[in-house]
């Protein structure tokens, strides 16, 4: 089942189970929503499969990317806040050059992150093709990696949009 098929199946069931409908069922609707959320999110899906709840050591590649992500997030927040506080056009104009180079650095980190995300997807496919043979350790490691990758991607994307709004 691909994402689109899951979404269509979800809509069909959700339309019938919604509590506003005759014969609707709020509890079943909530269960359905939770199940769909797990299916959509690779990290939660793997966790569910491996049956793990406790946290594990930081994946190596995540540790390597973490410092880059954290650094660029901090730089972005500081510079965006500074721009927001500028009360005149000239001060804002002076900040344009640093903002522009920040946006280039941000794209580079985003690219590294997306390369990593692709490698995680490949690993997922390998596991899929050998299923149900799998090592719970590997699964939880992969689940954590997906969780970090997606969280960071959305944090970086948020800054990218904020920069885009300033730079136009």
């Amino acid at each position, binding site marked *: 089942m691909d994402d689109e098929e899951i979404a269509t199946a979800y*809509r069909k069931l959700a*339309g019938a189970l*919604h*509590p506003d409908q005759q014969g609707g069922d709020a509890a079943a609707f909530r269960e359905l*929503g939770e199940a769909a959320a797990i299916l959509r999110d690779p990290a939660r899906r793997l966790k569910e499969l491996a049956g793990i709840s406790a946290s594990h050591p930081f994946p190596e590649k995540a540790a390597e990317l973490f410092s880059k992500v954290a650094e660029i997030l901090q730089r972005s927040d500081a510079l965006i806040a500074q721009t927001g506080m500028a009360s005149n056009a*000239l001060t804002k*104009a002076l900040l*344009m050059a640093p903002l*522009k180079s920040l946006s280039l650095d941000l794209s580079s980190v985003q690219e590294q992150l997306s390369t990593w995300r692709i490698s995680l997807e490949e690993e997922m496919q390998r596991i899929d093709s050998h299923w149900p043979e799998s090592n719970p350790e590997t699964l939880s490691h992969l689940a954590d990696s997906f969780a970090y990758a997606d969280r960071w991607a959305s944090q970086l994307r*948020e800054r990218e949009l904020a920069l885009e709004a300033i730079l136009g």
Partner: protein
Amino acid sequence: MIAGIDLGTTNSLIGVYESGFPTLLADTDGRRLLPSVVHYGDSILVGHEARRMQAIHPNRTIASVKRLIGRRFGEEGTEGLTGIPGAPVTIPLGGQNLSPEEISSEILKKLKVIAEARHGTEITRAVITVPAYFNDAQRAATRKAGELAGFSVERIVSEPTAAALAYGLDRLQDRSKIAVYDLGGGTFDLSILQLDNGVFQVLSTHGDTRLGGDDLDQAIAALVASKASLPRLSLPDTIRLHEAARLAKETLSTEEQSTIRLPFLEGGMNIEVMLTRAEIEGACSPIIRRTRIHCLRALEDAGIKAADLDQVILVGGSTRMPLVQHLVVEIFGKEPNLSQHPDESVALGAILQGAILDGSLQNVALLDITPLSLGIETFGGLMNVIIPRNTTIPAKAGEMFTNAVAGQSGMRITVLQGERELAADNWKLGGFEIPFAPSPKGAARVGVQFSIDADGILQVLARDTGTGIEKIVEIKSAVEVSDEAVEAMLAGSLEHAFEDMDARIFTEARLKAEEMLPAVEAALAQLAGELPPDEIAGIRHQTAEVTAALQSKETVRLKQTLANLDNATQSLATRLIERAMKIS
């Protein structure tokens, strides 16, 4: 029968579902739009009559009260109102202090009277719309306004979602993705929906609850004031100017130019100012451009590209402006769909939601979402999201938490709403304590489960897995703050009341000058070789003027010289931006 109500910033509407169609109900003069204006005089007037009183009795009349509903003193947008920071907003009107919900309830009562007169029966149940990006407090306050007006409020529904229902009703066999761009009098929302055989699934929503036609009117009024070199106006004159600005904005949606005439202003002034469409577009463009980032965020959250959208539907009175339509084309790369009546489609959608709820409209299901993330505060003052934004409701989700400190005998659950990483930056919805037996660090386990019903009301359940002790708390209204909390806020707040107004304005201007002067030096240093000498001399002259004004401590002079320096450095700023854009 359930009525549908659009409680708008500028206008409100009501209607019912009749013989298979949503029908808007008009007053005895045949008008469907009721201005959202309330006047407190010998009696309470609402609508057209109240609007006529606005310029005569500005202190007894209020418009756009929706901008204040569910807000607390000290928040953005409550400037000009005095009260204890953190306490729910109240507005002094005709000798009383009234809450925004009380004022809104007068508008709703009037709608109820109009509808009952037209329909001939009592109407006690209603669906009321709110901006999609309203938070929990704003939704709860709107619900309360409905109850004060004598309605049983069956559902609070988001405006763009309602508009999508109105659009989709004739296209129930469709399978398409649509965006609803809703720019009203005071708020902006962008929602993305998937329509699939009668199921309306909201995929994402973003917005700004303080961005709308009112802001455009203000920008145009400021433009007129500067073109006519108006002095500070009295309150009644300011209201007349805003009204004239609003009319000019409407005229310039179809005409190329319009003349504003305001005779008999205080002090015997008469003004006559010609405005062109290009001029007001220049003034409004920065405000309208603020909608762009919300559109991009909503697309991002829905996981789709602008090209995947089948239609972009415009609703809200402000989308009549050609400039708004141009920006929509720029953002989404397609011509907007103008099939919906910009003022009426939200109310029609509210009526349809009412018909779904009472069973008169079948085989149509609306899957709405929670616009803001919900979570709890964790160790270190961070927000831990439990239900992410854009989750379809009803929903539930839970997580396990453990004690961070050894010997801890309880856990404080603070429920938060918002998108910021630090707990303190988000909206606090409420909190409670769950006790557990003192245990070593990490040994106690507390399960926290969030459950939202179709009305968006949140229930939080916390359970100590060791003892099985459970606590369930319904988070009803966030705007009601306990007296102790208000006392504490009062103690912590600064006394601004006795501050000298002029001293404050001078300080603001001084801070601006202190930021501006070094910026000029830095810019001149960077562009040293590129500027013509006479331009440099001009800038130097203005800088010296500002410095002199700073020493003179004259507020008006400092503001004037700063404005001159701003003008003199315009091309400097442009050059800096052009240089920055070449970096790659």
